[in-house]
């Protein structure tokens, strides 16, 4: 494991203006040889890359704007423009590199910036159901949490993969990472739930898949990965609708027809249908596309050098596969990382779609959906725009209430700091070049979420005014530590009202619980302010 100290993760690209000194890009008519074009245009053209010969992309140095303009009108030239500079920019200060020896070959993980997901816990506490051919416990999955699954395939009781597909899919989601073996996964700290619905021949029945979806939900899966498809099925549709109503996220492969017409069940409303891109961010030639495509992700393109998706297979080797089956688990892993970082299911889904890198036609299109998955952009958005905003609100509320209590100097600053941290957590920690670990991921969540991460059995207590009230009762009257309940209660109030839903309690009941407890938190902070003001006056 090592840090690339100066590496900057591409989260958003900043387009810098071109200068006359920059080289020009000349896109030749397909099939034109370099020699013919160089002679006809009287320019020392060079291929952009040896692989761009088919595309006709060339570059030329030292060319004036006027010559460039006339060049674009030449019959051998499709387009000519000044080379644009794209500078990497990001909220992340570095990209951690795991010690898995084949990680450098995993262009797919680099492309989606999987490292940013590791910075926020790598899917810790999240269960992803692999509804597939099963999972084989290969050496590079030894450190991965895999639950006892279930097989719906007839005459097959265990979930051991005897095809290779499911193990590869599972590896993309949660291959043990930084273990000095093989490859890495998108959300290596998530828990896998293997549910076998496809036999060794790669086929399964619709009723098995419907039962698998129900079973996965019953066993607490947060994300279902369906790298499979087939004819429409009413029972599968019903199972999918029930799962979506339970807040479970469903990711499915768009299909491998190379044509328009997203396959079932990916085409069902609410399911995240994933098309596949190759290493050049082009739609993979086999990928199905259509209006139902929500997002695209690396699925591999083996017609390109090292263009497959490398992952562990059942023969204890690492195989490069291609298919939308390989693209879908990137999205499932990314969702697991966001959910593990504290995003709600709706928030995780919206973040992934909103921050995808736009490809093809501007805006959503049938080939790439919202664009290609970019986990760094999604995580960065969650941390800065959401957590950072909560931090600011928590600090602001604390500032106001502490002013009522005549807090001054260090005591007020400490209260404001606790208020911010209590509402938004140490949201900036994952952005720093620190080794990914549970402690940074935990600290990056609002304080109110901490007890629940350690003791997940009493969620309703943790997501209440219980702790702020206890702190107020014990520390509120003290002069030296009153800033703790002051900031803690204000921050908790902000965090509670910004939660989508209370744990356990459904609908309006949950929302009422959150607002009622937020009001108690605010009352606690005002009580501390009142006590301290009275003490100050006395």
């Amino acid at each position: 494991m090592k840090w690339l100290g100066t590496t900057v993760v591409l989260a958003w690209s900043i387009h810098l203006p071109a200068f006359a000194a920059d080289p020009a890009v000349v896109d030749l008519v397909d099939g034109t040889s370099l020699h013919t074009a160089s002679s006809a245009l009287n320019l020392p053209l060079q291929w952009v890359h040896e692989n761009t010969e088919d595309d006709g992309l060339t570059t030329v140095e030292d060319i004036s704007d006027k010559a460039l303009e006339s060049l674009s009108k030449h019959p051998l030239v499709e387009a000519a423009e000044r080379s644009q500079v794209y500078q990497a920019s990001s909220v992340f200060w570095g990209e951690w590199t795991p010690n898995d020896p084949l990680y450098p070959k995993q262009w797919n993980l680099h492309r989606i910036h999987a490292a940013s997901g590791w910075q926020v816990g790598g899917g810790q506490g999240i269960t992803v159901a692999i509804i597939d051919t099963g999972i084989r416990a290969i050496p590079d999955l030894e450190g991965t949490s895999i639950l006892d699954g279930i097989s719906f395939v007839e005459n097959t009781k265990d979930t051991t993969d005897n095809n290779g597909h499911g193990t590869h899919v599972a590896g993309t989601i949660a291959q043990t990472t930084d273990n000095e073996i093989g490859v890495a996964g998108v959300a290596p700290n998530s828990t896998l739930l293997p549910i076998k619905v496809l036999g060794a021949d790669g086929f399964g029945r619709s009723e098995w898949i419907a039962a698998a979806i129900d079973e996965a939900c019953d066993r607490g899966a947060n994300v279902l990965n369906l790298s499979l498809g087939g004819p429409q099925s009413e029972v599968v549709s019903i199972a999918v609708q029930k799962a979506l109503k339970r807040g479970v996220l469903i990711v499915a492969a768009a299909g491998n027809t190379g044509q328009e017409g997203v396959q079932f069940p990916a085409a069902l409303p609410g399911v995240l249908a994933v098309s596949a891109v190759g290493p050049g961010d082009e739609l993979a030639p086999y990928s199905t596309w259509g209006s139902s495509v929500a997002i695209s992700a690396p699925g591999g393109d083996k017609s390109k050098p090292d263009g497959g998706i490398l992952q562990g297979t059942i023969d204890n080797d690492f195989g490069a596969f291609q298919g939308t089956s390989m693209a879908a688990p990137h999205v499932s892993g990314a969702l697991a990382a966001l959910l593990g970082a504290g995003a709600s299911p709706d928030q995780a889904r919206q973040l992934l779609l909103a921050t995808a890198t736009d490809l093809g036609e501007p805006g959503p299109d049938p080939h790439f959906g919202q664009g290609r998955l970019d986990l760094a952009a999604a995580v960065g958005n969650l941390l800065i725009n959401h957590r950072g905003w909560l931090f600011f609100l928590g600090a602001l509320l604390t500032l106001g209430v502490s002013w009522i209590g005549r807090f001054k100097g260090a005591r007020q600053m400490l209260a404001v700091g606790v208020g911010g941290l209590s509402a938004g957590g140490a949201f900036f920690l994952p952005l720093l070049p620190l080794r990914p670990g549970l402690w940074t991921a935990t600290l990056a969540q609002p304080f109110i979420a901490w007890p629940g991460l350690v003791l997940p059995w009493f969620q309703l207590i943790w997501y209440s005014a219980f702790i702020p009230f206890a702190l107020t009762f014990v520390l509120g009257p003290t002069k030296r530590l009153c800033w703790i309940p002051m900031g803690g209660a204000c921050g908790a109030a902000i965090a509670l009202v910004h939660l989508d839903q209370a744990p356990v309690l459904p609908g309006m009941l949950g929302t009422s619980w959150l607002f009622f407890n937020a009001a108690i938190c605010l009352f606690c902070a005002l009580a501390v302010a009142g006590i301290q003001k009275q003490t100050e006056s006395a």
Partner: protein
Amino acid sequence: MKRFEGTLLFADIGPGAWVLETPQGTRLSLQGNIPAALSGQSVTVWGEPSDAMGFAMTGPTIKVARIGPQQSGGSVTES
């Protein structure tokens, strides 16, 4: 039972999947025992459309009852 004709291919999808590429360009996904020796050859497949799901997702699935070298040219036919 229906008869389908085309080229038998082991498509490079996932760990690999048997498909019958018809003259129209449709890639029918084949379920059943497929003799690898026929790979790349023009074949005739006897079978029924299947409602099975799978990871191949190249096109409609055919449950193969019998497969052999192509007996006559042409597209997907029914016998």
